[in-house]
Each structure stands twice: as structure tokens, then as C-alpha cells.
């Protein structure tokens, strides 16, 4: 299912090759392209290390909720928040 979505997105958004963090599987690592969301949320995420250009690796996943490795630290983040973090393909 994920592969289908990935390829669809790839086809449609040719220039804007971003996808939400939630589409990454455990073990995958990508570069963050954009951190969205409310101002306060964005700032908080940034202070945790979720910043454009940073690398994020998914360690574990439960129904969309993720545990990721960002700047050598381990952050648990729920699906809604993770969907606002866009990473490159």
C-alpha cells in the first residue's frame, strides 16, 4: 500500500518530492525538507532537532505513531504530528 502511495506521489508531485514522515518504514532514513504545523508546535519540534536538512531515522512504528532517531536522540511522536514533517523521497 505504501509503495503505491509513494509512487503515486512521485508521479503527481514531480517538483515537490516530499512525503510525510508517516510513510517511512522502520529502519528507513531520510532528510527533513519541511516542518509544518502550528507555530508553537513547529518551534517545539525544531528545538527537539526536527529541522530542515536534518536526518531522521524511523526505529519503530505502531499504527502510525513513530519512534524516530533525530540528532542522536530518540523521540516518540504520534501520527498527527509526524504527518506534518515532510521528508524527501
Amino acid at each position, binding site marked *: 500500500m505504501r509503495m503505491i502511495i509513494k509512487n503515486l506521489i512521485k508521479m503527481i508531485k514531480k517538483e515537490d518530492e516530499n512525503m510525510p514522515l508517516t510513510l517511512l518504514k522502520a529502519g528507513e532514513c531520510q532528510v527533513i525538507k519541511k516542518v509544518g504545523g502550528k507555530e508553537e508546535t513547529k518551534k517545539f519540534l525544531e528545538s527537539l532537532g526536527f529541522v530542515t536538512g536534518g536526518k531522521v531515522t524511523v526505529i519503530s512504528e505502531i499504527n502510525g505513531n513513530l519512534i524516530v532517531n533525530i540528532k542522536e536522540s530518540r*523521540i516518540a511522536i504520534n501520527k498527527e504530528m509526524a504527518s506534518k514533517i515532510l521528508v524527501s523521497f
Partner: protein
Amino acid sequence: MKGARAMSIKIALAGNPNCGKTTLFNALTGSNQFVGNWPGVTVEKKEGKLKGHKDVTIVDLPGIYSLSPYTLEEVVARNYLLEEKPDAILNIVDGTNIERNLYLSTQLMELGIPVIMAVNMLDVLEKTGDELHIKQLSQKLGCEVIGISALKGLGIKEVAEKAVGLAKSKKIGSFKHEFDLRVENVLKAIEKKIEGEIPLKERRFFAIKLLERDEKIAAQMKKVPDLSEEIKKLEEDMEDDTESIITNERYSYISSIIGSCYKKKGQGKLTVSDKLDKVLTNRYLALPIFALIMFLVYYVSVTTVGTWATDWANEGVFGEGWSLFGLTVPGIPVLVEAGLSAIGCAAWLQGLILDGIVGGVGAVLGFVPQMLILFLFLAFLEACGYMARVAFIMDRLFRKFGLSGKSFIPMLIGSGCGVPGIMASRTIESDRDRKMTIMTTTFVPCGAKLPIIALIAGALFDGAWWVAPSAYFVGIMAIICSGIILKKTQMFAGDPAPFVMELPSYHMPTVENLLRSMWERGWSFIKKAGTIILVSSIVIWFMSYFGFVDGQFRMLEDMELGNSVLALLGSSISWLFIPLGWGDWQSAVAAITGLVAKENVVGTFGILYGFAEVAEDGSEIWGTLASSMSGLAGYSFLVFNLLCAPCFAAIGAIKREMNNTKWFWFAIGYQTVFAYLVSLCVYQWGMLLTQGTFTIGTLAALLITFLFIYLLVKPYKEGSYLERKKTMELK
């Protein structure tokens, strides 16, 4: 004034959560502040005196990720640093994720206060094989950097001495970090505009915050210059908003210095913690594993190891006697009785001491072994980092009924004591979620309820394996069901907050830390027994051993307690509990005394059921209780006491946190009514299933059960802002 004594020095400890700040604080001040593993544990600053320096105060600030004003902890820390102006900042940095930690450091260094950096967890860093060149880092940052391991006690003295020296010298480091030239130029312009109001050393910090449009900082200034032009130009120039510009600049600066100071050896391999997480937070295994762990915790502490120890305490120390190296040492009641008789003490006073004090307090103290073991387990689970994962695991479950995993943290804390659990709800931003969390936190059995659990399990169920763990799960189910029911009402409807939390690495807690935590909890339990429970026991004894017989008010014999003042009072409300299976005055009274302290339930039973009377046939402890209350009634009694309103201390905490009389009474009322209805159903269904009796009580239980099911499955009401949110997300 020449020759004046040096003024006292204040050094602030600042750093990310989980970086070892509180461990360092304990090491520096010799105090025993509790080291928690999640946000909300340290929400206020804590102070202590540096060991060996009478004039140096160390302040432990809440763990923060940055100095922006968005979370409660950040506001507390920032306000302290800006207003109290400590003489130096000891910035603790977690060596295992330096990059993220430095984000805060760069901000601390802009405040104009001398900063010294301590890189913690060097021992862990060594194990990973990564290299950190401290001298290089120090040079690049422009401040002194010392490597330490707070846990192992390495480098503590050095960093303390250097920090004091720095504070005394008042030398602000030459912080070298510079942003992009365009940003620097704008900052220079801003600094010029605020020259009049802000002293030199703070100017950069204020300039940066004003550039980021920090409203709270602007509010603190008397005259805020108009910077809209400068900001607009920079934002157009760099194609981003100023806050993001500064953030990116910081991280760029950090990357530039990290490159030369930090060498990674292990490339992208999963750490032990990661591997553990893959199993413990696995989407299928996570909840079953948690259930199994909590089952084992309660089973082992109450039913197996705990029981042996408590049997020794109840039958031996507080009973007939116990053997010490082959000699029989008589139990305390025997000794006391003998002693009092020998001294010619009057019967009534003997009664007060034996039946009242020894009976009440002794009954409670008998459960100390089980409590200690439970607290040891809970301390281990929290200190090793697992409980943080549980909040994350429960988030997925909680989200199904509109709460977030953040609401589970107070419940985890509440398994020790409800008061800090209720206080921990402060970190929940959503008002509705916070209220709901406050209302349901005390459903989880706290330490004080353990004697009740252990008593029912031991005396009425002969130590059956399922009774004690079931108490915990009853609490959890009560929370989940309450959550579902309440979230479906208009009052609480709405979306849950997002959940973001740092998970510390798993680590083996030191035996010292565990034993200390266990002992602290245990000692407070013993102290509680010797104070409030002792006083309560005396009052209860007087009220139960004095009453009216044939119109005459006098002291009563053991068989006449039914005539006592207490029985009179108890009988006036005990009829309420008949449908619950325990409509006798003793149980009603015991439950009421539980309001003062939950342990009193056991203490009261101890007095009323003649605990101090050693049974003639030496039969099992609590024989008289077992003969007057059936197992089913006992379980219903247990459920009621687990779920009803907590002790006065916790009630006070609820009142303070709700900050609203109406909500406070709603919370207490909800808990008690919920407890009543659930216990009623437990008893009535139990009677139906085991004995086939069908009474009006059974009918009531049926109705209640149907109502319950309806409330659980009825559709959700749309929160009014659910619609608005959906439209906003499309931006």
C-alpha cells in the same frame, strides 16, 4: 564596602530533559531529589547548597529544549534566568546527543551570564566508540567545557570548583557563534535601537528574540522599537520567517563546530535501546507485554514473595511470635500485653494500647514488606526508562477515546502516590483533557491502597494469584471506560493533543538509586503509620470501645462493639451498602476512615476485628474478618475502595488543580458514584452467577450494566472545533 563578606552565589543548572541534571544536582548538593524520567517531574526550580560551600546555592531548573516561551517548563526556566540573574549557568549537555543539546546551549550563551558546560554521560559515550574532543569544543564555543559522568561521580568536584570560580570572576565568555552576515547586520541594527533600555551583555539575546517576534520578551520591555521593516526585508532576502531563519542558523553553526569535535565510530547501527524498543513497542506485542509486566509486579509483590514476608510480620512480629536463630521471640502484642499487665496497667488503657494502637497501626505495618517490594519494582520500571515507553504505547489506545498518552503519565506516577500524579496533569495543555485526567488518575491503585488489596487477597481469597493484579487492571479499565464515556459527552468532546516525547535510553538503574527510592517510599509509609494512622486509630478505638448498653454509657467488652458510638454512626449509612454485599457498620466505617488515609481501612478492620487478639487455635491471620465477610463481598468492598474518592491529601490536590468548586465536586461525585455502581454490579452479577439468586438488587445491576454499555457504544458528539481544524489543515 571594602572587606565585606562575599555575597552568596547562585549557580543555575540548565539543560535538556533526561541529560542528568537532577542526578548532578543530587551529587552537588548531597540532597535526594527524586530523579524522574519524563516531563513534568521537575516543573519548578529546586534549590540546594553546594556541598562544602556555605555561600553557594545551586538551582536545578526544569529540563528544557530551548528558551522559547511555549511550554510551562521553558517559561519557568527562562523567567528565572532573566529575572533572578544567577551568577553563572552550569549547562549540562548529554554527550550522546550533543547536537540537539547544543541548540539550547547557543541560546544560554546569549543571555550575558557566564556559562560553563559539563558534558555528561561520558561513560556511555565511551561505550559507543564515538569520540568527543572536549578541548576543541571548548575552543569553538568560547567557554569552558568539562567532561563528567554524573552517575559515576566523575568530574563532579572539578566542574563544581570551576563553576564557583567562574561565578566569582563574573567573566562572560567570548561567545564566538555568529550567524549569517545578513542576520548579523540586522541584529546590529536592532541592538542599536534598544541601546537605551537593555544593558550591553543582554542586548544580543533581546535583539535575537525581538527579531524572532517573541511577544513575551517584547512585553517585558518598556519601549519596543518598531522593527517591522528590518524583519520584512530579512524575510524577503532569505525567503523564510525570522524564527526559522534563526533556528536554521543555530543548527548550521552547531554542525560547523560538531564536525571538528565529534567523530562517530559506530555508523547507523541500532543501539541496544533501539533493539529493545523494537520489541517492547512492537505494534502487536507492546500492550500484552505491558499487561504481563504489571501482572508480575503485583503478583510477585503481593501474592508470592510479599505474602511470605507479610505472614511473618502479621503472624510473627504482630502475632504470636517468630523464631530468630532458633529462639522463639514473642510477638509484639504478647510482649506488650505481658508488660502492661506486669506493671499493673488498668484494663481500659491496656485496651487502648493493645486493641487500639497495636491493633490499628500493627495491622497496617504488617504490610510493609509487600509495599517495599512493590515500590522496588515500580522504581525499577521508571528508572530504567520503560515507563516512558508505556506512555507512548498507551497513546495509541488512549487516542481511541480522545485522550493522548500524555494523560497516562499522571497515572503512572499515581501508582506510587496519587498526589504527585494529580499534580503531573499540569503538563497537559488541553483544559478538557487535563480535567479528565485529574478525575481519573486516582483510579490507579496508589501505594496506600496496597494494604487493602493485600488484605482482601490474603484473608478472603487465601492468596489467590489473580486478586492482586486484578486490582491494577480494574483501575486501568475504570480509566479507559471513564475516558470513553466522558469523551462522548458534550463537556469533554474534542480532539486529543498531539504527543511528542523524548524517550531516554534504557539504562540499568544503580542498586543504590533503587534502594534509596524504595526506602524513601517505605519510610514515608512507616512515618505515616506512626503519625496520622496512629492518631486515627486512637480516635477509632475510643469510638468503638465506648457506647450505650442498656441506657448506660460505658466501656464495652469485645463482644459488645455493636453498641458503640462508632457502630451507631456506621449503622446510619451502612444500609447504603447492602446492595453491594457489605452492608455492615464495620465495613462502612472502615471505608469512611479511608478518607483520612487509605491505610486506615485496614487499620480500622484491625481494631474492630480484634487483630491483636491472638486466635486461640492459631489459625490464619484475619480469621474473624474472613468469617464475617464473603469473598465476593470482600471483592466488591475492594473495588469500591479502589475507585471511590481518594484520601484527603489527594482530594486537596484535585481541588487545587481543578481550581473550580463545581468541577471539584463533579470529580469527587463522579468517582464515588462510579465506584458505587461498579461495586454493586460486581456483587450482584457475582451472586447471580455463583448462587443463582435474583433479587431487586440483581435487577438494578442489570439496568446499570445496560446503561454502562450504552454510554460506551453511543456515537461521539462532534467537538465544535473539529470542523474548523479540518479546514485549517488544508492550508
